[in-house]
């Protein structure tokens, strides 16, 4: 029996078609991912976590393209990736802000420790 290319393609097409037809567009997830990217931008991730933020933005734009082509199965993991990348960007921004504050405090305490040491010259007004 002669092998017709159709014999190979048909099952694959069938599998794909059945997958597509049952998948609902992940619209809620899309909204969430878009909001999360905006949130990351608004807390200052552009400065504190630029690489992760870019990742989140790229996954989101790929997901949006897939949605337009109605490749919902493809869009879902992309949206999940975007969402979690945004979360990381937000977490990293928060942690960097806290670390900066802690460093500042640590510096002040060091200064105080040096000034409070007996015999030290007191020049600044850390004693209020």
């Amino acid at each position, binding site marked *: *029996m002669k092998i017709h290319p159709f014999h190979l393609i048909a*099952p694959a097409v069938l*599998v794909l078609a059945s997958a597509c037809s049952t998948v609902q567009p992940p619209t809620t997830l899309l909204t969430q991912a878009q909001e999360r990217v905006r949130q990351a931008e608004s807390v200052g991730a552009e400065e504190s976590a630029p690489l992760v933020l870019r990742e989140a933005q790229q996954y989101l734009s790929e997901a949006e393209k897939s949605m337009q082509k109605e490749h919902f199965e493809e869009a879902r993991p992309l949206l999940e*990736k975007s969402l979690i990348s945004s979360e*990381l960007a937000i977490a990293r921004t928060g942690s960097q802000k*806290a670390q900066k504050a802690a460093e500042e405090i*640590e510096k002040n*305490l060091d200064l105080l420790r040096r000034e409070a040491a007996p015999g030290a010259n007191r020049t600044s007004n850390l004693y209020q």
Partner: protein
Amino acid sequence: MKILTAVCIMIPMLWLAGCATTPNQNSRINELQQQINELDSGPDGKQYAPIAVREAQESLDKLKNFKGKDEQYEHQVFLTEKRIEIAREMVTQKQAEETVATAELRRKDILLDAAQQESAQARNLAATMAGRAQELERQVTDLQAEETERGLVLTLGAVLFETSKANLQSGAQRTVQKVADFLNQYPERNILIEGFTDSQGGDDYNHQLSEDRAKAVRDELVKNGVDAGRIDIHGYGEQYPVASNDNAAGRQQNRRVEIVISKENGADVSDRTSMR
């Protein structure tokens, strides 16, 4: 049709092969588990971000029991790695926030410490001063000094000098050195050295001799580190006798050098002539 059947069988087979956990995946899971374990608690056993850590663990647990396609597995790995990173950031943030929150407490600790050290230092200083006052008293007694209106007067007896000579005898040098040590402890006080003789010999000669003796004591003091600028000298000859010149014992008492130390820091010792 045979081929179609074969293809239909092979697809699920490939699928299953993808599901089976390979050694490679196992080592990856172990690695991620290791990372989570390191996050789980701080050095003091304290959990800084328990929720984020639990979420990372749940994500990894899904991976451990994963049944699905290779690409879905990779996706879950991606999510788990990100969850671990998020948890790590949360832990760092909480630790930093703790540093900030405890800063006020630590600031007070530092000040309290400093205050305690300072009061200890003040006590030491007071003790040192008291010790020095006592030492001064003891030395004054030692040198047979006398408190007068003009200041502290030390009398160096005539035994320090040979008759008609102005140079100090060797035994006298130790006495003068003691005086010098005493003076060096009170560098702000000025000194007047007064020389006296007995009534034997002419006035001019006695005057010169008394001055020479005063100078000899001054030079010895300077040799022992006393600043020459603090010292004035005066020769009085046979004036101001302290005993009768009629007998040898009295005359010996009259041959003397007196060192007067000012009462106040920086003040000059007043002259005898200006006193009365």
